[in-house]
């Protein structure tokens, strides 16, 4: 329903959003890797003043099994205030939750009781296939033309993957977003520079190369994604492709600067075929074209092969496996999840082409198995993965599972889910909140975290 005034969680600029009130709840996607019981969106109490702080206080189960909940997003956000397509009188109220494996979309209402969200609509994969010709639904962003959903494959599970639109109000599938996709075939993440009318997409692979785990031959053959694609956000046409080269595989999470006047952003590359390092690249404008530069390289760490899973044994090293990154609202700190080594690294990226490390914690990790003060088990598995930052940049939350079929390739003895929180110093520096550790209930693994009212990867802004 339309409202008389804009939703109070919409902010014209990232500067204003950074002054938003603290979140008290986090929504976390939780899935059953065995596909025996329904996946769920769990509600975690993140209010330190609450008696149930650091506990799961609510949960909504999906109506089916085997969805593989992964990423999700809000129906509406601060981009509703944009001057070219204004429609701010909607509520940030519904979570749009896709199943990566099932291609099913769930619309979940958080308003009647934020701790007891309810499913209000389920869009079956047939409807998505029929209207948009896509499947394997991945990332959600609210934006100028409605709710954008990307998909890793077409309806038959083949390339090309792409983006489609949902109506803001009815959640009806409106159809494919691209008008001219040029050479783009693979899909993974997408986001945009609203101030530069530019969409950016990244690449993973087709479902046959990940739904049963990563395929070593595909990886060593450099057949997974390694490109960025730049699009005109409004004509929906492909403008430019940048190939990171054969060495680089799996170009994942895109984090454009929140300030819409800035034309740069960061993307993580999971692995180098040359030395197993992970890297962070900055894209930026140069001579009226987009360009990229590798700004961070995180080396693999030598390790006793006895401690390594079969995929890494031959290398005598543990790869950092940067699988998620997130940028603080002031575009100052970039958080980098090293799911392999177990590090969460904070970089000062005030100069986007010359990041400086300002903080690092270690938890879990293929070899390190580092623990947490509040964990009862002294050897944690999994590693820092989906990371989310509060709007004021003071708190960072993350979970430890990557993807059902890939988790056992790197953590063969299984992953026990957890969610932790970091406190951030005023001028950088990160440390665990020793009182926050969610020992995830067995049977589910946690993935993406969304914070009440918005966070640092949920909203985009039209005003500086």
């Amino acid at each position, binding site marked *: 329903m339309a409202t008389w005034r*804009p939703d109070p969680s919409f902010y014209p600029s990232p500067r204003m959003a950074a002054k938003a009130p603290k979140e008290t709840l986090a929504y976390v996607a939780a899935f059953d890797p065995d596909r025996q019981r329904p996946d769920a969106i769990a509600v975690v109490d993140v209010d330190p003043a609450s008696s149930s702080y650091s506990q799961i206080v609510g949960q909504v189960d999906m109506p089916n099994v085997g969805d593989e909940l992964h990423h999700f997003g809000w129906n509406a956000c601060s981009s509703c205030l944009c*001057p070219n397509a204004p*429609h701010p009188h909607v509520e940030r109220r519904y979570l749009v939750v896709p199943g990566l494996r099932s291609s099913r979309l769930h619309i979940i209402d958080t308003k009647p009781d934020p701790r007891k969200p309810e499913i209000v609509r389920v869009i079956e994969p047939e409807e998505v296939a029929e209207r948009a010709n896509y499947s394997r639904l991945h990332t959600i962003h609210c934006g*100028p033309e409605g709710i954008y959903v990307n998909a890793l494959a077409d309806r038959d599970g083949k390339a090309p993957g792409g983006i489609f639109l949902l109506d803001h109000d009815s959640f009806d599938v409106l159809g494919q977003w691209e008008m001219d996709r040029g050479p783009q075939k693979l899909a993974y993440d997408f986001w945009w520079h609203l101030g530069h*009318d530019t969409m950016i997409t990244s690449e993973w692979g087709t479902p046959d190369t990940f739904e049963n785990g990563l395929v070593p031959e595909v990886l060593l053959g450099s057949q997974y994604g390694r490109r960025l694609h730049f699009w005109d956000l409004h*004509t929906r046409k492909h403008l430019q492709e940048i190939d990171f080269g054969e060495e680089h595989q799996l170009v994942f999470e895109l984090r454009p600067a929140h300030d819409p006047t800035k034309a740069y952003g960061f993307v993580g590359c999971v692995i180098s075929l040359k030395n197993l390092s992970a890297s962070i690249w900055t894209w930026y404008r140069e001579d009226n074209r987009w360009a990229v530069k590798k700004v961070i390289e995180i080396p693999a760490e030598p390790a006793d092969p006895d401690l390594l899973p079969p995929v890494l044994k031959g290398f005598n090293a543990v790869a950092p496996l940067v699988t998620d990154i997130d940028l603080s609202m002031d575009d100052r700190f970039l958080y980098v999840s090293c799911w392999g080594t177990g590090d969460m690294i904070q970089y000062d990226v005030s100069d986007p082409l010359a990041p400086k490390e300002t903080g690092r914690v270690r938890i879990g990790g293929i070899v390190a198995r580092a623990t947490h003060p509040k964990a009862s088990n002294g050897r944690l598995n999994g590693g820092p993965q989906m990371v989310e930052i509060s709007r004021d940049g003071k708190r960072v939350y993350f979970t430890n599972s990557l993807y059902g079929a890939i988790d056992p390739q790197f953590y063969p003895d299984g992953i026990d889910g957890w969610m932790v929180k970091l406190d951030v110093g005023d001028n950088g520096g990160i440390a665990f909140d020793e009182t926050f550790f969610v020992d995830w209930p067995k049977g589910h693994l946690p993935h993406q975290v969304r914070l009440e009212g918005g966070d640092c990867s949920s909203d985009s802004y039209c005003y*500086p």
Partner: protein
Amino acid sequence: MRGRRDCSEAEYELQGVWRCAVWQMTNLWPWLSLAGLGAFHGANPAMGWLFAVALGLHRQSARTVWLSLVPIALGHAVSIATVLAVVVAFEAVMDLRGLQLVAAAFILAFAAYLAIYGHRHRVRVGMRAGMAALAGWSFLMATSHGAGLMLVPSVLSLCLADQGGMAGSLPISLAAVAVHTGAMLAVIAAIALAVFSWLGLAGLRSAWINFDRLWILALGATGIILIVW
């Protein structure tokens, strides 16, 4: 129907007190309402002042704010002029009552459409918009929101009061567009200046009332005025 300047006794009895009172105000109220609607349209952030401010902020230039107002006003003016041209063309071939009812039916249907389906459509213009794109954007926003439709009663009443027939309708319609757009331009300039220079955008969060809803109400009122006229 043309040429009635005053209320005769017969007309008084025929049409009733209310119509007569309205009739006597004919000379002034249409101009006032055209200007008032111009101010109303201009105040709506979706009609352009907010876009001008945003472009000024992006390009860090007050000059951009001022320059942007011109194509925004122009696009708005072309949109309402198009609607009024259609109305004047129909006026030449239809009797007034018929035209009023047809216009009322169309406007009420349009208001109902907006109420049910809203204003969302393809977004074609973004923050890199040039002046021509901005004019096109303003034209589309005004047209899709039914800005010109709100002016129909005022313009019909002006044409009616004028004795010049079709030849007289044209200059009156142009004058109507000028008065409306002038008022709109004054308001968007005042708001854009105030927001860009002093107020900032934080106020949007609470002060941006739902103009879409107000517009649907205004369109509904416009249709009803045409029917009961």
